[in-house]
């Protein structure tokens, strides 16, 4: 993928094209795998049924069948809808999702762009999806869609704060915003002088990890935080007027964002692509092993998100806001304080 890896000198546009295509393939494969694994099978087994079994061996091609169905459907919009904004909204949401993957490293050389502000960039572009959701809700000319969009706006803003504050604990520990630096800090680190497993921050920043995963659940608007698309109250919230390919875009974006946040969480807290430095593997080996490691960790974390989704009932709106402002934010602030004190003291 990188010039270093292949021993080739590539022009900038060539390496850019390769990076983009490789990134897109990786993201779409992972997203499709997650949909099949969790949405089709995992939940079916939890509910004592088999799930899709007809399309392909063990129902594995079901997703392609669904995509084909959506692509054939008519592209409908309401009479009063603001056509331009209505069409732009899914694109804004999807680009916010794809932009998140740009900085997530999958190996020593395998990263689309190794930005100095890595994790801060991820938080910034993930915040853009709110804009698309508000656009969708308003342009649909439907009161349920507008209600859903407003709920989503309030929820996503409320849970962005604990997410940013939880990440700060990791940033203080690693001393960098760059995701490669954070990975390196975990691989090179040691816990009380023991360097056998490095210092995966899930052990030393467990509070931050818990707060981050709860905030991720809310940012993804997965149950128990799914008021924006609550089917019993709002039909489908901001997605209610979308059909066919535009709905498909929302669907892809929902699950790709889950993969993105899980990949970020595995990079921040589970050591990312790296194995502890004390194990002594070379860069060449890690360029092959790294993507497998980070993808496995990300898929496992998406599993946690979906396990929660299928296990809990929906919160009430006031409970949701109270959880963010009165519990998660104070806990995350206290975590930063304690982390900073420990960082200075030791």
């Amino acid at each position, binding site marked *: 993928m990188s010039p270093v890896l292949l021993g080739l000198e590539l022009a900038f546009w060539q390496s850019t094209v390769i990076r983009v295509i490789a990134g897109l393939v990786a993201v779409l494969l992972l997203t499709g795998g997650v949909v099949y694994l969790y949405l089709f099978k995992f939940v079916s087994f939890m509910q004592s049924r088999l799930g899709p079994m007809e399309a392909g061996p063990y129902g594995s091609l079901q997703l392609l069948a669904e995509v084909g169905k959506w692509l054939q459907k008519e592209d409908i919009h309401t009479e*009063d809808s603001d056509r331009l904004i209505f069409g732009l909204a899914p694109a804004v949401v999807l680009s916010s999702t794809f932009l998140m993957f740009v900085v997530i490293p999958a190996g020593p050389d395998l990263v689309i762009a*190794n930005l*100095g*502000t890595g994790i801060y960039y991820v938080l910034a572009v993930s*915040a853009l999806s709110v804009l698309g959701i*508000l656009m969708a809700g308003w342009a649909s000319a439907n009161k349920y869609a507008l209600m859903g969009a407003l709920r989503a*706006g309030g929820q996503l803003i409320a849970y962005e704060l604990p997410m940013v504050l939880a990440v700060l604990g990791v940033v203080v520990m690693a001393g*960098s915003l760059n995701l490669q630096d954070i990975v390196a800090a975990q*691989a090179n680190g040691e816990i009380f002088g023991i360097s056998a497993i490095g210092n995966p921050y899930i052990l030393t920043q467990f509070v931050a990890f818990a707060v981050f995963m709860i905030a991720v659940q809310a940012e993804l608007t997965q149950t128990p935080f799914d008021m924006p698309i609550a089917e019993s109250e709002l039909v489908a919230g901001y997605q209610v007027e979308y059909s066919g390919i535009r709905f498909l875009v929302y669907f892809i974006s929902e699950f790709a964002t889950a993969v993105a946040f899980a990949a970020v969480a595995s990079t921040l807290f589970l050591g990312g692509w790296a194995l502890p430095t004390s194990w002594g593997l070379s860069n060449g080996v890690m360029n092959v092993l790294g993507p497998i490691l980070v993808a496995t960790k990300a898929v496992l974390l998406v599993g946690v998100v979906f396990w929660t989704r299928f296990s809990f009932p929906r919160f009430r709106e006031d409970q949701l806001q109270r959880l963010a402002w009165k519990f998660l934010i104070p806990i995350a602030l206290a975590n930063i304080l304690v982390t900073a004190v420990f960082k200075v003291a030791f």
Partner: protein
Amino acid sequence: MSGLLAAESATTFDVPANVTFAVLAVLMVVAAIRVVTTRNIVHAALWLVVVLGGNAVVYLLLQAEFVAMTQLLVYIGAIIVLFLFGIMLTRAPLGKASDLDNNQRWLGAAVGVLLLVVIGFSVTRTWGNDRLDFVAYELPAATAGAAVEVGGSGNGRTQALANSIFVDYLIPFEVVSVLLTGALIGAIVLARRD
């Protein structure tokens, strides 16, 4: 950020950066004009997104990566969303509205010109003929040997910014924070008279 402004260095004229800026400037001016001329208040807020997003790219061109991300996170991710949220919570008419105009055009124009003069004067007085030394952004090359000694790119600039805010300009920064907190409390007091 003064470290970035190498005053006497042999500055190269960066063609891609200048072309990007020219295209961006035109786009931002058009979008800014549409903010005040559009007949739909939600469209006005969305045109403002284009202006603020262009601003973020300008910061990127100036190699202020952290500031650009802050612009995205704070202005588009929070402030515009609050605008839209407020508009949609109260009234969000689709189509054209006729009551968006008022009789303060000349006053607005005067304030605009005044702002332009003040900002232009202070910028030219502060930097004068200083030129930004464009440094090609380099991805860190993989290091042979140790498995995970990578990264470290661009950290210096963020650190320089942190030093400016939390060392050189600590007191103005804290004063602004107190001012904003005061404004916030004042807004709550005004909104909740009960």
